[in-house]
Every structure is written in structure tokens, then in C-alpha cells.
């Protein structure tokens, strides 16, 4: 239980509406699947610990909160993310075609130039496939991203997608062991004076 957490990684899940982003998130973090999920409401981000190659990391996986529908994800959503999962629906070609736009969105807003990208073809449990594996793999290779096919419904590939992504992130030097942002303040109820006697009032 006391395994040391190496670091916390911010992972984004992006892609067109309805491709199953939240389903993948929920399958991975809670091992649940709800076929009636319609639109993402109330999901912010979820965390889960994952051990890869003997290292335990904590993932904070951010959902789009529906802001992908009109392509209005805020630049702050993308900030400091070390990994991105780009999801398309293998039974809907247009969601695959849109990956190009999502990649350029990532390119525009990522603050980490070496962010690790993983393309996930979801819904492989369905029969009416429109995107074949070869084409998707070629696309992934061309854009230097990882690639996997998955089904949030049957669990296929979901765990693996996250493991592969984390594996690559940990292997990428300078991506997660960054100290540049030290000294930032998380605003909360507690006091964090940098100097215990920094208050005028404490002086007699």
C-alpha cells in the first residue's frame, strides 16, 4: 500500500463527441461501462494509480466536460499535460478524419513540446467498422503517435492504452521530471507563509 508514487501525470482525453472518451475514462478508472451514457456532465477529471515497469505513477485524467463539441476546450485544459489520448470511433470514419484537427489543436496549446500521444480506435466490439486498422496505424506512424484499438464496452485494450502511454512518458526525458514550476501556490484554506514571521502583527 505504501508504494511510492513517482510523479503525478496529467493525461488528456480528446476527440470528437460520441466516440467514447468518457467511457474509456470510466472503464479505466472504475471498471464500469454504462451503455446509456449520452453527454458528459459532471465529469471533471479522475485519478488512478498505475504501476508500469516497477514505477508507480498517479494519473490525473481530464475529461473534456463537453467542451469539445464546439471546439471550445480552453487553452488551460491543455496546459502541462504530459500525455494525450486521442479517441476515434472505428465505426465512424469522420471521427477518424477529425484526428488531424485534434493533433493540430494539441500542437497549438500543449506547453510540453514532447507530449506523448496515443491514438485509440474505440468501439471495436461493434460490427459496422469503417476505419481499418492499417490505415489508422499508418496515420499514427506518420504523426509519430502510439496506436491501439480498444473497446470500453468489453475492456479490450483500455488498460493497455494507459500502460503504453505511461511507459512512453516515463521514458521521455524532461517530460515529467520537470522542476520549472516549483514554487507555485495552490490556493487553499491553509496558510503558506514563506517566512513564519512575515506578518507585521507578529512583531512586538
Amino acid at each position, binding site marked *: 500500500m505504501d508504494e511510492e508514487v513517482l510523479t503525478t501525470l496529467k493525461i488528456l482525453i480528446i476527440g470528437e463527441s460520441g466516440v467514447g472518451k468518457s467511457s474509456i475514462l470510466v472503464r479505466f478508472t472504475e471498471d464500469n461501462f454504462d451503455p446509456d451514457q449520452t453527454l458528459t456532465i459532471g465529469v471533471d*477529471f479522475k485519478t488512478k494509480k498505475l504501476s508500469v515497469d516497477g514505477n508507480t505513477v498517479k494519473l490525473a485524467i481530464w475529461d473534456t466536460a463537453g467542451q469539445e463539441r464546439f471546439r471550445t476546450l480552453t487553452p488551460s485544459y491543455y496546459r502541462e499535460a504530459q500525455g494525450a489520448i486521442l479517441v476515434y470511433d472505428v465505426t465512424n470514419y469522420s471521427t477518424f478524419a477529425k484526428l488531424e484537427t485534434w493533433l493540430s489543436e494539441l500542437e497549438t496549446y500543449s506547453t510540453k513540446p514532447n507530449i506523448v500521444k496515443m491514438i485509440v480506435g474505440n468501439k471495436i466490439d461493434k460490427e459496422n467498422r469503417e476505419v481499418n486498422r492499417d490505415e489508422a496505424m499508418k496515420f499514427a506512424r506518420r504523426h509519430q503517435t502510439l496506436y491501439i484499438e480498444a473497446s470500453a464496452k468489453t475492456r479490450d485494450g483500455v488498460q493497455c492504452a494507459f500502460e503504453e502511454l505511461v511507459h512512453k512518458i516515463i521514458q521521455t526525458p524532461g517530460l515529467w521530471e520537470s522542476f520549472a514550476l*516549483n514554487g507555485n501556490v495552490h490556493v487553499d484554506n491553509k496558510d503558506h507563509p*514563506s517566512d513564519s514571521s*512575515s506578518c507585521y502583527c507578529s512583531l512586538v
Partner: protein
Amino acid sequence: MEYELPTEFDIIIIGTGVIESIISAAASRIGKRVLHIDSNNYYGGLWASFNLDAIHKLSANTEVLDPPTDLINPDETTFALGNDFFSLKNFKTDWHIPKAETQPENENVEEKNETESEEKPEKPITQDSLIKDGRKFNIDLAPKLQFARGEFVELLISSNIARYSEYRSVSRVLTWLNGQLETVPCSRSDVFANNKVTVIEKRMLMKLFMALDSGDQEYLNYDNKTFRAFLTDKKLTPSLIHYVLYAISMSTDETLCLQGIQNTKRFLDSLGRFGKTPFLFSMYGSGEITQAFCRLSAVFGGIYALSQPLSSLIFDNENNFKGLICGKQRISAEFLVMGAEKAPPEFIKSPPRSFIARAVFITDRSIMSSEKEHLTLLLYPPEGGKNSCVIIELGTLTGTCPKDLYLVHLISQQVASPEDDFKHCVENLFSKFEDDKKPKILWSCFFSIPDSNALDLKTGVPGNVVLCPGPDLDLDYDDAVKKAKAIFSDLYPDTEFLPRAPDPEDIIIEGDTEDRNDEDEVVLKPEENTDKVAESETEAKSDNDQEVPKSENEHEE
């Protein structure tokens, strides 16, 4: 457009400025169906941040679109959206460095080595090199600092919106005194470290603050007198009066005593919470803050649409707002809230009379160099008929500019024009010559923001429509929070304003915390350690039992 917007909402909010975004989050939070829409392709409106490329493309055009008439009933009237009163004025950017690197000449390099103490011969900074790094800039139109115990920070905490943004504490407060920069003593250690303040002065200062802190009511005798008169009667020395009047209380010679006392108390109250000074700056710029509220609104179901072809508003014959025309859609709602700059000109009874003068510089070094990078607030006193200026200098650790450069914001109440109003500051603080110790301005940007805060934004505006003012001259967002709160309780009386959002998981995202050594960074240590213990306990549990706290209407897609 790939997806059509739904056409029925409880409230439509046009514009993504701070006040609009807070209202959006608050309405969405209590379950209202919110459409938050903007014709701009960016968040923040007049409160936005831009990278170097985007700020050059910023133009103050107000496009008026003709609505499709088939969406309007015969007994309805329409007003075209958008006015020119509140758009940015006097916008001007200039480069003060060559476009590209000139052929390297040996002479040049030698000269540089002699005059500068840097170890490595640096590449000259050019327009091209800055543009290449352009995305690392986050240039605020309305830069703000937050009081550590101000309303805004309290709202971030109480609403749990704090998790969407990170802050850095201002590490020093400076003022301009007797022709040079001086550090304003903010903390006990500052007071003692300050060799410009004599021992007697140190005692005087402490006595004054102790008196204010213990609720000394002596100032009540200064009903109609100035704060300066009060400080003078306290027998403070001229330098101390300067520190307290112009820096700590951010007052002028005319500020009344009570106001000055309140300002001073506010400053003192916010000390000792985060870092060495009372102030926080949001990482990546103040423009992040509107995005944090928008994110919360979206998480609770608010629908977001930017770059929208908004043309006009529809009203019935009793002058009630009925709907909005966006492209070929008619979208209706009970209420309409919008930024003043988005309003039809017919709704604006009086054009703005005052303006916020703004300048932004990219510089090659800090105004007061030191070993570690500082986040500096310089309170420049009124001088020679010029108003006081707030100057904020940001380094790369704030996420607003590339390494080894600084972003300097100047803010003042406009008298003549931004360039004229800041002329004296520029002459005193910056240099035109390479070999000077002062920072050199590499790029400059000047503009004016019309101040809509003192204006009547209610008269002549239909009952179910609210106009929100744009940026104010305040250093912080506290007044904006108050205004948003007031508008929200007018719209939805007896409902809670931004109750605490449930924690998906208690988590703090950030890098390794071990490597902290500079003083600013002590900030979080005690709290982080305790949190880590707590986290791993709950975490272990949820890993096994899949017991993740449920928030309302969770996980759908």
C-alpha cells in the same frame, strides 16, 4: 457547423469576460441550462491573454451581421449586437530590435564580452527569435494581482475552482522614491533587511501597524481629512509616508483617511498567507481565470461556443428579451447576460468617460536585477501631473514569457494617452542603449481600455437583460466578484452562489516537490506533506474498492 446548438436555455451569456464567466459558472452550478457564447475565437474578451502572434492580430473591429429575417415574428424587434464604445483604443505595437540576426561580426562579439558579465556569448535577440518563441508569451490585456485574503481568493477556495489554476506569489513590492527603486518593507524581515529605513523608522512603522491591527480608532477624528494628513500627524518621516501612502495603501495625496486606513489594513491582512507579499498572480496570465470559471460551468453542463456568428437580439413588443440569432439559428432563453462591449449601441446611455492606459513591454532584464527571478509589483507614485502607475514585472516562472526575458505591464488611469502617461516611467526605468544596466525594451505595445465600471449600465436596458462592465482599474478581481455576485442574486434570488463543487478526487497536480530551495518555494511544503498522506490512504481504498466519490450526473457520453 457540425453540431447545431440547442435552441432552449434558461440563460444565455454573451462574452467570456471575468464577470460573465463567474455568472456562467454560478448559474450552471445550480442546474440552470446555460449557453455561454462568444463571437471571439478566444476566451476572456477584454480580460484575455494573448501570445505574441495573436496580440499582433488583435484588431478592434466590431462586425455587424444582418440577421436572417425569417426567424423573427412580425411583433418582434431586433437589435444588432456589438458597439464601438468599449473596444480597445489607441492600439499600437512596435519592435525595438532588428528583424533578423545580422551577419556575425567578430567585433560585435568582443564588444559584448567586455560590457556584459554573462559567461556565454549570447545570441542577439531579434524579432524573429521572439516570434519563434511567441507561444511562450501570455500577454494580459488586464493583468491582475489577487490579495491573498481577498474576496476572489476566498471564492476560489469556497467554490473549489482553485483546482483549475495555479498561482505564484509576488516576491517583492517596489516603489520609486527619490529618483530610484526601493523595496517596500512588507514583512518583518523586509523591514529589518531594508538599510534605507533607520531603526527609529522601523519602530515607527511597526507602531503604526500594531495600532491599526489592534483596532485603534484614532483615525475617526480624520473624517474629512486625507490619509496623508493622518500619517503626517503620526510624525512619520517623508520616506515612511511615501511607503505607506503610495505603496502599501496604494493611495494618493487626496485619498481620504478612512479609505487609506482600509487599504492599509487590507494589505496587512493578506500578509503571511501565501509567500512574502500579500499578492498572487495566476500562472500563464490573468486570462486563465475566466477559463477556470468556464471549465466549471462546462463540467456542470454549460454549453460553450466560441467564434459564433452572433447577429442580433430579439425582443417582443413589451421589450422583453426573447432570443438570440446565431447564424441561422434562433436560440431562446429567459435571461440574457452580456459584456457591455457586446451590447447593441441602443443600450448604452452614456459612452465611457474614463480610460485605462496600458503598456506592455518585453525586456531583456529585470528593472532591479537580482540572483533569483522575482515577480515584482512596482507602485509608481503620482509625479508631475501624472497619475500613479501600477507596474507588474513577470519572469519566465509565471509562464507568461520565455526564459531570460521579462514581460512588464503598466497600468494607470489615462490622462492624455498611454504613451504620454507612461513616458516618465519609461525614461526612468528603461534604457535605449545596450550598455546600460537598465533593461532595454525589445517590443512595446500601447492601448487604452474604456472603463465601463462607473457607467450606468441599467437605464434603458430591458428587464431580463444584464450588461456586465469590463476591466476596472483595481489591482485585483474582488470588485468583479462582488459585481458578478450581485448580478447573480438579482437573477436567481435565494440561491447559493457557487457552492463548493464536489472533489472528483482530492488531488494536486504538480511536479516533484523535493527540489525546492529558494525561499518562495517553502510556501507549500507543510501542506503538501500532509496531503500526500491523506491522498495515499483514500487512493489505496478507491483502487481496491472502486470507491470513487460520485458527483452529480456523473460520467456520460
